[in-house]
Each structure stands twice: as structure tokens, then as C-alpha cells.
């Protein structure tokens, strides 16, 4: 049955494409986001940031700024009661004290009457630096022992080798979240010695913990609330302005607003860990995988942030969705001065899947096998053990996904008649020098696995309160809505459970018990489950009440379509009236199953709560000579357990796929000598409406055990595999190795340098060899064997 393509306000419950409750406000521009917050009497904040990637701070003089008219406060490191914060480890200063370790690191903050004065005040602060030599290369960081985490494990018999082997070294670049709303918010004193911080975050409770800690306050004195969030994609996990704002608000006694520009939003925040991954697949001649070897090097920033979690994800899901009986895996997360790194949709796994899928295609070529057949043949199955020693004990439709996806109809080729083609269909777009005779079409299929929920012992739980009164319900849950549509899902869950339509989801703040962070594709399966359990409790309490009032057995009653339904299916009473104005309420907590760190090999617990699967078939048109690429179409088939909201689920596939395409072709936040080169949207290129291909999403639904409706996390998989899929399709069109994402026009055109620029005529049918070749390592253990030996 085809999926809904439109939303409606008149449908209700799980399985419908209920319209987002905030859609009307958003389309009228009346929905308030963090950058929109305004308050009478508010001051404006500004931040002095380091111009150096690495330097000793010799002296800071705040007085010249303090003396300026219109300036109400200027604060430095010593004004922070406990100058530490961090997403996991408290290893990052709120304001740099003795050293600055990345370009853009905050040193001092100002509150002033208007943004212009605030900015000028930061420029008046005098700082004396002693610049030092930054570490700007991950391999150098490894050599110098700047290691946040070293992962090493084997599975099965690591001495096994395969008759056929393929290996490669693959690189992914630094990607920026580039959500549309820049960092912003307001902090205000609450008049009782505490502070309220209103902004846009994925996790209000984690923010509160860190703000309180840095301020030396008990958590009860800090309230964190979400205003509207303009996109997140994993990028609002750690704080930028929030502790600064709280400090200034308490210091001045007034609300303080921060609004970062787009450049500051680039510079102040973290980005996806660049990666360098060596992979070697071993197989029998019939294509059966026998061993996986991999070494993963993830580049983090100068503070640990979430790097340990990222490399853990990568070192496990480097396996891809394949059955592999033997493995030898090693990985490092290291720190450089190239700016902070942290989660971005598909955290730590996008890099690994890119390497895995790129190398699987290499293996297929070595075997002389069709790449889809190779994948299908080796699809992991229920009952298999992952190489990180986790039993795959739930539905595992990988083969089904690959085969379904592979067999979907291909788009028609470009017409022969050039004049009938609108230039948006051509690589290069309007005014492109490309014409059909210059273009080769490429097709490739990838499949991917991604952990759903935070892993390796991170506690993942949510608490929700559901209240029913007079036929209407409210949901209180601290799950951050960032655009993904959790608010709609929560409504639908309560609609189905309580048989009503009128459900309101309230805003998110720390007066509520904690919910899971909006990360790891985990909100529906964690907070959604908590909402469902709470609603179910309310349902039972309501039916118990009704049953007692009417001398019935509550076990024979149901709630549906606004009515209490009797044992014979008859509508007994309107839910509204039947409630008699009473309040029915429940607060329930749901915990995901416990997971273990990778290193705790003896434990029975799984490493990941659960793992999701998807397949992507990508079609590209490539102007081979100029390296221009037009992604024509992507077809995605994904197991989502249960389709809660068809339009929203497709929206996740569509948006994620285009974002993944961005890293495949155009997105690369470049650093040189520790300095960012392209921190704005003129020079950092996200996909435009012309770049975006047609995306078709299809779902299979194998209910996930342990959840009342069998739902499964969706959001990250499409992004993860789109990067792999797009580059694979470009390889198919060009015959080049393209081991680096993004595959820029320069790489795809295979232009090495001035003197070796090759001119290709359209009649060339010879498959091109890429400029980059992997030489087999001298030792069998991989290319960085000698480097990892120096450990901190």
C-alpha cells in the first residue's frame, strides 16, 4: 500500500499522517524560536574568542571594556565559580584560562546595552598571547599520544585469512550541522538567587547539570527551558552561550540575550569527527565473508567531548549489516587543535559505514560479483553474533532490504534531445558546460547498520506524565522537539491509547523529570515508550473508575473513537462525560535495556541497545571530464518496526538522505594550520533545492521487541548510508577509487595537478584509474602499526 503523501488534522492515532501540532504557527511565522526571544530590559551578550588555534594566555585586561559606556559586565575565567564543563568529561573550560586550544575558544564575555556596543567591548579587551605550535593532523596527534580512547578487540579467530581480499584507506571530512537557526537564547535571573536559561538544546537536563556545576549552584536553582529549536542533527548537545549567559545574568541582575551570527555558529560549535579508516575484507571465492580487519582514526578537538563514544560506535559498526565470523579491530580517537568535534547525525557510524561500503564494492570487484549480491549473500541474520560479541536477537531483515531496494525501478535516462532537458537535471545546473554526451550514469547500492540509542553503558531513559480530563489529554515530557516531529508522535500515541483526539504536548523544561536526549534516533523508542506506558496507566485508571461506576469488569472495556466501548463492542459512553470532570494522571519512566562498554568483554549485556538497518540505491549523472555530479534519485528501504506517522517517517528519510549527500559531494569544513577556511555559507556548501534528488522511501515493518508498538529509530540511517551510496554511484560512473568524502569536482575529474591534467574526449570508453592507490602494507597489521605504539 502506498504511503500517505499528505498530512491531515482530522486523522488521529498511530499509523496516520497526523499534521504536526505546530505546523500552523510555523507556516505563519508565529512559532517562537530561540533567536526570536526578546525581553524588556534585556542586555546583549558578546564573546571574545581566541584568534589562535593554540596559545598560552599571558595576560588578560578586561578594564578597557568595563570602562565603555553601555557595558554592564565583562567577565573572564576567574569569574566562573568552577570553570569546567563538557558533554561527558568536565575537561573543557567555560572561559579559557591559561591556554587557548582552538581558534574561536571563548576567553571573555560581555553584557551591554546593544549588540554593537557588546561587540566593540570584546574588541577592547586586551589579551596577550604566546602562540604555540598547534597539532593539526590526526596522525601527528596519534604519534604524540593525544589519545582520548584506544579501542582494540578481536572476534573469533583473528588469524584466519580469506582467499580473496580487498583493502583500502578511506577518509571522511569535517561536516557542519548547518541547522538553519543560529545559536541563541536568553538567560535571566529568577529573582531568588537562581537563573533561567531559555534556548535551543537537545537535552535540557544535561544542560542544567553543567550550568549549575559551573556556577557552583545546586541544580534546583537552575531552570533550563527550550524555546523553538530550528534544527539540530546532533549539534545542540553541548553548550556554547548558555553558561556564559547565566553568568552574565546573575552578575548584572538582568536578562542577557546571546545571538550568534552564522560564522560564530560555525566557529563556536563542534563538527563531525574527520576520519581515516583502513579496512580489509577477507572472503572465500564464493563471496562469503570470513574476516574483517580495520583500523579507525577519528580526529577530535582539543577537549574530549564525545570522542570516546564516537570511536566506540565506529569500531563496532565498521562491520556493517553483514555476518562476519572473525575480526581484528583497532581504533583511536585523538585530539588536535583543529576545533571541537562531536555528534552529527549518524554519530561515529557514518565514517565507518563509508569505509565498510566502499571496501565491500572493492571486494565485489575483486570477486567479480555483483555488489548487491555480495551484500545480500552476507546479510547478517537473526541469531548471528556481532563482532563486538552482541547477539542479534531480534528481527534482522537485511537481506530483504537489500533485495527489495535493488529491484526498485530505475529512473529513465536523460533524453537524447538536449533541448528538452531543463538544466536543473544536468550536473552543474544552470549555465552548466555539461550536455548529455558528456555524462555517464552511475548506479550503486549500499546497506547500513546504525545503533539506535546511546550505547556502551550510557543510561537511556525517559519519564512522561499523561493527564486526562474531560476527554482531553496533556503530555508532559522533557523530550526535546527539534523539528523531527516527536510532538506529533506523542500526540498519536496518546490518541491511540486513550481513544481520544484532543491531545496537547506541553513545552520542555527542567521542572519535568529527565527524558532521553534527542540523539541516536532514540526519541520515539524511549520517550515515545514512556508516553505510551504513562497513557496506558491512565487508561487503566480511567477504565477502573468507569467500571466501578457502572458495575462492569474493567478488563472487558476499551477506549476508542472518543467512547468507552463495552464488551460487545457497543459505545457505552462519551469519554468526556464518562470522566465526570475528574483528573486521571500517571507519571511513568521507561529505561532502555542496559548496555556495556566495549572493553567489558565478560559482561552479558549488549554493547548497543538495538541496531537499525537500511538499504539505499542511488543513481547519479556525472560529467566525467569536469567532475560535476547530479544525484538523480535515491531509493531507500528501511525497517522502522512500525510506521507511526508515514509522512514524518518519509521526511526523516528524505532530509537525512540529502544531508548525507552533502557530505558525499560538497560539504567540507576545511582547516589549515588550525584555522578554519570556510566558516560561512558562501564557502561551506550545503545542498540547495537544485542539488536535491528525488527520494523515495519504502518501509518494512518488523516489530522491534521490548516496545509496546514495536517501533524503531529512523533518523540517522538515511544520512549514514547516503554518503556511502552517492560516492559509490560516482565510482560506478567514473571507475575512480574516490576514497575521500566529499568527492569534490576536482577529485571526480581526477585532476591531479597542473601538469598532469588529463583531457578526456567523450569517446573515451576506457575505465579511468584513480590518482590514489592503496599500496598493500608491508606488515599485515595495517598502516599505522608503528604509530599507535606511543601511548600517552
Amino acid at each position, binding site marked *: 500500500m502506498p504511503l500517505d503523501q499528505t498530512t491531515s488534522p482530522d486523522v488521529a492515532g498511530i499509523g496516520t499522517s497526523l499534521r504536526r501540532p505546530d505546523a500552523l504557527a510555523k507556516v505563519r511565522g508565529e512559532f517562537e524560536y530561540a533567536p526570536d526571544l526578546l525581553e524588556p530590559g534585556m542586555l546583549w551578550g558578546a564573546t571574545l574568542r581566541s584568534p589562535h588555534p593554540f596559545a598560552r594566555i599571558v595576560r588578560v585586561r578586561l578594564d578597557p571594556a568595563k570602562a565603555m559606556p553601555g557595558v554592564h559586565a565583562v567577565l573572564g575565567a576567574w569569574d566562573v565559580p568552577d570553570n569546567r564543563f563538557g558533554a561527558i568529561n568536565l575537561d573543557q573550560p567555560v572561559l579559557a584560562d591559561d591556554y587557548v586550544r582552538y581558534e574561536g575558544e571563548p576567553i571573555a564575555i560581555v553584557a551591554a546595552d546593544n549588540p554593537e556596543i557588546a561587540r566593540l567591548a570584546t574588541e577592547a579587551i586586551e589579551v596577550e598571547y604566546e602562540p604555540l605550535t598547534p597539532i593539526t593532523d590526526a596522525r601527528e596527534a596519534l604519534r604524540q599520544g593525544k589519545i582520548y580512547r584506544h579501542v582494540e578487540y578481536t572476534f573469533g579467530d583473528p588469524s584466519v585469512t580469506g582467499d580473496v581480499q580487498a583493502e583500502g584507506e578511506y577518509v571522511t571530512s569535517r561536516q557542519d550541522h548547518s541547522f538553519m537557526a543560529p545559536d541563541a537564547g536568553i538567560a535571566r535571573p529568577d529573582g531568588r538567587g537562581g537563573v533561567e536559561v531559555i534556548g535551543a538544546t537537545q537535552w535540557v537536563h544535561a544542560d542544567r547539570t553543567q550550568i549549575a556545576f559551573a556556577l557552583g549552584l545546586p541544580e534546583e536553582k537552575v531552570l533550563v527551558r527550550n524555546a523553538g529549536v530550528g534544527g539540530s542533527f546532533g549539534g545542540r548537545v553541548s553548550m556554547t552561550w548558555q553558561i556564559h549567559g547565566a553568568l552574565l545574568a546573575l552578575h548584572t541582575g538582568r536578562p542577557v540575550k546571546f545571538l550568534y551570527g552564522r*560564522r560564530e555558529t560555525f566557529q563556536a560549535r563542534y563538527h563531525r569527527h574527520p576520519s581515516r579508516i583502513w579496512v580489509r575484507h577477507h572472503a572465500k571465492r564464493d563471496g562469503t565473508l570470513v574476516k574483517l580487519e580495520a583500523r579507525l582514526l577519528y580526529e577530535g578537538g582539543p577537549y574530549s567531548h564525545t570522542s570516546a563514544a564516537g570511536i566506540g560506535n565506529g569500531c563496532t559498526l565498521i562491520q556493517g549489516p553483514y555476518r562476519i565470523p572473525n575480526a581484528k579491530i583497532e581504533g583511536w580517537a585523538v585530539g588536535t587543535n583543529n576545533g571541537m568535534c562531536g555528534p552529527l547525525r549518524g554519530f561515529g557510524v557514518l565514517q565507518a559505514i563509508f569505509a565498510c561500503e566502499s571496501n565491500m564494492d572493492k571486494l565485489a570487484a575483486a570477486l567479480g560479483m555483483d555488489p548487491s549480491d555480495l551484500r545480500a549473500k552476507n546479510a547478517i541474520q537473526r541469531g548471528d553474533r556481532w563482532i563486538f560479541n552482541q547477539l542479534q536477537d531480534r528481527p534482522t531483515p537485511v537481506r530483504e532490504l537489500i533485495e527489495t531496494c535493488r529491484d526498485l525501478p530505475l529512473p529513465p535516462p536523460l533524453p537524447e534531445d538536449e533541448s528538452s532537458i531543463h538544466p536543473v537535471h544536468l550536473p552543474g*545546473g544552470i*549555465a*552548466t558546460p555539461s550536455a548529455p554526451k558528456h555524462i555517464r550514469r552511475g548506479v550503486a547500492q549500499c546497506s547500513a547498520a546504525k545503533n539506535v540509542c546511546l550505547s556502551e553503558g550510557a543510561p537511556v531513559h525517559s519519564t512522561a506524565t499523561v493527564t486526562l480530563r474531560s476527554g482531553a489529554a496533556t503530555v508532559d515530557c522533557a523530550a526535546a522537539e527539534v523539528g523531527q516531529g516527536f510532538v506529533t508522535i506523542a500526540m498519536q500515541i496518546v490518541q491511540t491509547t486513550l481513544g481520544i483526539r484532543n491531545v496537547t504536548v506541553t513545552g520542555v523544561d527542567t521542572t519535568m523529570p529527565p527524558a532521553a536526549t534527542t540523539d541516536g534516533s532514540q526519541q520515539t523508542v524511549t520517550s515515545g515508550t514512556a508516553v505510551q506506558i504513562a497513557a496506558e496507566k491512565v487508561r487503566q485508571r480511567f477504565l477502573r473508575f468507569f467500571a466501578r461506576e457502572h458495575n462492569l469488569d474493567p478488563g472487558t472495556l476499551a477506549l476508542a473513537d472518543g467512547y468507552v466501548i463495552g464488551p460487545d463492542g457497543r459505545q457505552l459512553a462519551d469519554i468526556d462525560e464518562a470522566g465526570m470532570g475528574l483528573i486521571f494522571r500517571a507519571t511513568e519512566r521507561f529505561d532502555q535495556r542496559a548496555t556495556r562498554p566495549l572493553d567489558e568483554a565478560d559482561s552479558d549485556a549488549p554493547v548497543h541497545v538495538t541496531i537499525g538497518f537500511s538499504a539505499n540505491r542511488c543513481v547519479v549523472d556525472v560529467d566525467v571530464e569536469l*567532475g560535476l555530479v547530479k544525484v538523480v534519485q535515491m531509493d531507500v528501504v528501511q525497517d522502522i518496526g512500525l510506521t507511526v506517522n508515514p509522512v514524518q517517517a518519509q521526511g526523516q528519510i528524505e532530509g537525512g538522505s540529502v544531508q548525507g549527500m552533502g557530505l558525499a559531494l560538497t560539504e567540507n569544513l576545511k582547516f589549515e594550520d588550525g584555522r578554519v577556511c570556510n566558516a560561512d555559507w558562501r564557502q561551506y556548501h550545503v545542498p540547495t533545492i537544485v542539488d536535491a534528488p528525488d527520494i523515495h522511501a519504502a518501509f518494512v515493518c518488523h516489530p522491534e521487541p521490548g516496545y509496546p508498538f514495536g517501533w524503531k529509530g529512523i533518523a540517522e540511517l538515511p544520512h549514514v548510508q547516503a554518503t556511502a551510496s552517492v560516492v559509490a554511484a560516482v565510482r560506478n560512473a567514473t571507475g575512480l577509487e574516490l576514497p575521500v568524502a566529499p568527492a569534490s569536482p576536482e577529485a571526480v575529474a581526477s585532476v591531479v595537478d597542473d601538469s598532469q591534467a588529463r583531457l578526456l574526449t567523450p569517446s573515451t570508453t576506457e575505465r579511468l584509474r584513480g590518482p590514489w592507490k592503496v599500496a598493500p602494507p608491508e606488515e599485515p597489521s595495517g598502516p599505522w602499526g608503528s604509530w599507535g605504539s606511543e601511548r600517552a
Partner: protein
Amino acid sequence: MILDTPELAVVESIAEALNAKRSRPFARFVSGGTELVADQNLGIVCPEGYISLRYVSEMTRVRVAEDRVEIGAGCTIAELLEEPLATALPLLAKAARAFGTRQVRNRGTIGGNIASGLPDRTLTPCLLVLDATVTLESGNGTRTVPVRELLVGPGITSIDPAELVTSVTIPRVAGFQDYRMVGPRNAQFYVTASIALVIDPSDRDVRVALGNCAPTAIRIPEAEAFALGAVDWDTSTLAESAAVEFGRLVGEYCDPPEDSAASAGYRRHAATVMARRLIRLGFESLSR
């Protein structure tokens, strides 16, 4: 004048503009603002004042004659896509279609695109290849110079700070004229490299210019000279090997930058390929 303050003057005539500049030497002329105000917002420049030329009607006049078109410097890029300019200047219409976004085209002006001096601007290769001339006015009078004389270096023009670009005069040309470009994605980008080509059989002329392949937009006289000799003007044909050589010369005689968007080698390669393809396309369409 619409507004007359020490830091901002909004003027209605060229005379007012020049006067405003005399009393505010630190102020920058601004028309569309699509480059200058963006740079200001990014903190790249910090103007101490502005003189807005938005409402100078003298600078938005268009005069279409049989042999040439005179466009006020204040004409927007969007107007290049409308009549009468779209028909009178098809090359500029092609470039205008590829220019930025609708929002930017509604504000960006021809004068601004020239006065910028950046080597990646959309219109300058087209103006070079059309042998356009630019009229400038200042307190010392008026001068008209070929566009090429204004383009000195990357972001550097020979326009005096107290001078105003008031109009552009473009000879009309029949024959083949086209503009192509490559960039880091498929829409809305600053060109990695661009090319404008004119083939005028009536004059037996081939003219080619590149964008972002040198410190300024440039013509490639070496390639043009080769083409003049290689073309069979009686049949309007060019041998395939000559098209290849033309491309090679275009690539050889440019001097592209290396930056975070692309290497010099790729730009040179792109110029070579685009030139070969475009001249081939040009002669194919002429011989039809």
C-alpha cells in the same frame, strides 16, 4: 536627497551622490548591497558610512540602439532577464539567469558587479568579451574606459574612491554568444571558473574571456588569435583538433588562483574543457 545624515546619505541624482561623497569621503557607495552589506554583516569590511545610490533614476536608464545598448549602472541583474535587455543582450541574459538567487538578482546591480573587482563576479567576463565600456563620473568630470582597464587585481579596480560608475555601454553582437560556469555545487555559488564566448562571423571575430581563472576576469588573446586563423570563415566551421587546441591555449594562458574552493590545476582544467566544448558548440550552431 531622501536622507542626509553624517553617516548615511540616500541620494536621488548623480550630482547629489558626488556631493555627498565630497562631504563624506569615508563613506562607501552602495546600490544593491548584495556584496557590500553581506561583507559588512560578516565583519569583512567595516564602512564608516554609506551613500546609497538606490534611487538615482539617472543610473537606471536603458537605451537600446541598433548597434549598442547603454545600461545605467544601477540596473539590477533581474532587469537583464526582462525586455528589452534580454533580447538586446542575450549573453548577459544567460549570465544573469545563472547569477545567485532571485532575491539577490532583484537587488544586485551591474555597477556593483563591476566595481567589486573580485575575479569571480558573474558579469565581468561577459562585459570583457563584448568589449563593453564603462562611464564614470567624479568631481573632475566624466571618463569612459573599456571594462578591462578598470580590472586591476583581485578586488582591486582603478576606480577612484570618489568616482561613480554611472553606465555601461555594450556593443550589440550577432552570431554565437554563450556563458558557462562550474562551481562547488549545482546552484547558488561563486564560480570556480567561468567562460564567456562570442563568435561573430560578420566580423570574423572570436572572443573569449574567463572568470576566476586569473587575478581579474581576463580575455585570452592567444587563444583568440589562434581561432581567427583556424576557423574556416566561409563555411563557419572549425576542425575538432582546432577546438582542442583552442581549449588548450585557453588553459595555458590563464593564471588561476588556488583556494579552499578549488585548486589552480582544476580551474585550468575546467577552463580548457569549457573552452573546447563551447567553441565546438558555437560553430555547430552557426553552421546549422
